[in-house]
């Protein structure tokens, strides 16, 4: 292999989605030499898919305040969220949204010129009393507009972008300090060391570990894989939010609005089964309730189709005009991806993995924290994380819609500020790289290059996604989890022996996909093993054998280590920064 050249920066950011771009603004505008590395052009990051909006208690349409938002977020998290980080996020919300407005974000507006706000599930006024308008949006292009506004701001601030580069491994020295990442340029296949005084991961989610996912193909959890290989634990990886209505086989999201317009879920005998699970709210019950009901119907043999593996979302009783006018996007999606025109036949749907609540453990300054010397929150010097790949933890066991775009802005900014301060406190020379800095990257690439009689990447990836869907889905059964652990470890042995036929250097997508699979499998193991161990139901984790939340034993964060798949736990921060703790209660809506 060719020698690895070294490029030095003050700060390196891996990921150019909402979180990475927000942090980069902070660093570049402080005059620091900042590089952003991204697999794809920044405005093609997955943040572009977000439509619903970003939460902030601006109170533009009706009374609202950050304490109510904080209460909703703690309750939504089923009390697993850290209350210091949640207070921090909710208090900063107005500031970061107004800043975004100044960056040129074209928010929808009221007649009086203020930002228009709409209601969204779980966001309430007066400590859970009634729905409140808290989501700020830019038509149905919120994420798109956000990326554009922040990308332009970065261009102005001279952020250096390395687009179509894939970060491969985190580099640490013997004392554990993070010194940067190795990365591969897709156009040449060249591997370079990006050395920095501060390294931020903002690599987004990993929904592609599941067979059915609303996430784009790019969400392969690279940051989590790199962190895990470098000995950093992953936090609360059992918690994945499932959206009840993804198109079966494709995953594309069908919004809640369809059931709002009168869409009905039916099982194989045509029964409106939600009447049994939620007699009042029926098809409009909350996401987790509907997802669990669907999973139960399928598990008990009442699913539809030859494999009895989906249920139907029926709109055929609605006036075709309603479907055409109110839900045109849905009709297109259904025809494209299910081959079904919803005016004439029902849409096949399954609960679909949507959002990863867990991630790389951080505090609200964006610093990565791990257990060390009897402390559970020792800072890893030089290492930061923000956005969906990080776990601050504000979403706990369940995220509220529109809170993740807020998370990106608040913790992207906060991590950027911390990095600026930390870099300024460091000597001007970069710390030395250890002699073995590139060993891991070299050995992974060499293994892939030389593999004979190995496993096919696509087939192995598919096997992983099937195991996760069947054994670690929306509703979890003890025997299935136990078998799931064995099966995912078996898939791992195949991942370690993947083989690619094409060995070219230039835009070799086969190699990129094999490297991504190395990361996906780390996320999959973390999720399965953490889920199997947690013997309770809380937020997104619903176990058949332990149907209730168990605060006496499980009010704690999981930490999964790659080495020997060891699990550790750390306490939930119940103490906010300035207000009283939000006491434990049953989470009912």
């Amino acid at each position, binding site marked *: 292999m060719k020698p690895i050249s070294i490029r030095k920066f003050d700060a390196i950011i891996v990921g150019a989605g909402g979180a990475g771009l927000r942090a980069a603004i902070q660093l570049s505008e402080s005059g620091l030499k900042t590089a952003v590395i991204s697999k794809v052009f920044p405005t093609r990051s997955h943040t572009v898919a977000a439509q619903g909006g970003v939460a902030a208690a601006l109170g533009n349409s009706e009374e609202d305040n950050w304490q109510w938002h904080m209460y909703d977020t703690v309750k939504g998290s089923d009390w697993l969220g850290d209350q210091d980080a949640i207070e921090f996020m909710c208090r900063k919300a107005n500031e970061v949204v107004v800043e975004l407005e100044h960056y040129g974000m074209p928010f929808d507006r009221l007649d009086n010129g203020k930002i228009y706000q709409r209601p969204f599930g779980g966001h309430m006024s007066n400590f859970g009393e009634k729905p409140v308008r808290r989501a700020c949006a830019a038509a149905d292009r919120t994420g798109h507009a956000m990326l554009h506004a922040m990308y332009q701001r970065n261009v102005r601030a001279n952020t250096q972008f390395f687009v179509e580069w894939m970060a491969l491994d985190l580099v640490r020295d013997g004392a554990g300090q993070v010194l940067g990442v190795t990365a591969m340029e897709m156009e040449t296949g060249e591997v370079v060391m990006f050395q920095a005084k501060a390294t931020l991961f903002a690599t987004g989610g990993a929904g592609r570990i599941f067979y059915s996912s609303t996430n784009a193909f790019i969400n392969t959890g690279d940051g989590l894989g790199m962190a895990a290989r470098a000995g950093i634990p992953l936090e609360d990886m059992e918690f994945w939010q499932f959206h009840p209505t993804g198109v079966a086989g494709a995953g594309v999201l069908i919004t809640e609005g369809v059931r709002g317009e009168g869409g009905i879920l039916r099982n194989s005998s045509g029964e409106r089964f939600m009447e049994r699970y939620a007699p009042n709210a029926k098809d409009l019950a909350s996401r987790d309730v509907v997802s669990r009901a669907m999973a139960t119907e399928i598990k008990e043999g009442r699913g539809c189709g030859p494999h009895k593996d989906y249920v139907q979302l029926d709109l055929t009783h609605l006036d075709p005009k309603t479907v055409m006018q109110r839900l045109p996007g849905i009709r297109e999606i259904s025809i494209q991806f299910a081959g079904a025109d919803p005016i004439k036949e029902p849409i096949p749907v399954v609960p679909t993995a949507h959002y990863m609540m867990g991630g790389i453990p951080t505090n609200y300054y964006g610093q990565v924290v791990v257990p060390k010397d009897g402390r559970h929150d020792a800072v890893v010097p030089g290492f930061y994380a923000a956005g969906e790949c990080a776990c601050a933890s504000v979403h706990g066991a369940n995220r509220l819609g529109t809170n993740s775009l807020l998370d990106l802005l608040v913790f992207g900014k906060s991590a950027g500020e911390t990095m600026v301060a930390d870099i300024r406190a460091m000597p001007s020379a970069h710390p030395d790289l250890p002699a073995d800095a590139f060993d891991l990257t070299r050995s992974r690439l060499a293994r892939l290059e030389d593999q004979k009689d190995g496993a096919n990447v696509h087939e192995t990836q598919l096997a992983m996604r099937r195991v996760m869907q069947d054994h670690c889905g929306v509703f979890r059964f003890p025997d299935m989890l136990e078998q799931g652990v064995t099966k995912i470890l078996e898939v791992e042995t195949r991942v370690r022996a993947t083989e690619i036929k094409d060995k*070219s250097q230039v835009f070799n997508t086969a190699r990129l996909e094999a490297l991504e699979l190395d990361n996906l499998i780390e996320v999959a193991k973390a999720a399965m093993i953490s889920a199997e161990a947690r013997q309770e139901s809380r937020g997104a984790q619903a176990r058949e054998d332990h149907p209730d939340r168990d605060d006496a034993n499980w009010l704690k964060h999981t930490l999964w280590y790659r080495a020997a798949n060891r699990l550790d736990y750390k306490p939930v921060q119940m103490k906010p920064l300035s207000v009283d703790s939000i006491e434990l209660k049953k989470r009912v809506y």
Partner: protein
Amino acid sequence: MSREAELGRLRWHSRRGMLELDLVLERFWRRHGESLSEEQAASLARVLELEEADLWEIICGRREIGEPRLQGMIELLREV
């Protein structure tokens, strides 16, 4: 850039920020990947420069693409 490399680049540019586009482009490659002419590859390269939401609206037929010479490629994407 060799043809091989150019196709690799187009394949990577078919990785999008929206799942809808990933799925349509995946089907496109499965159906037409082997037989893509040089002219088609050039059209695809232009089409892949479009913004996510714009490209999706065009594929759904809610809008037409401004450049008539790309219409053939859009039809192929709509068909798959």
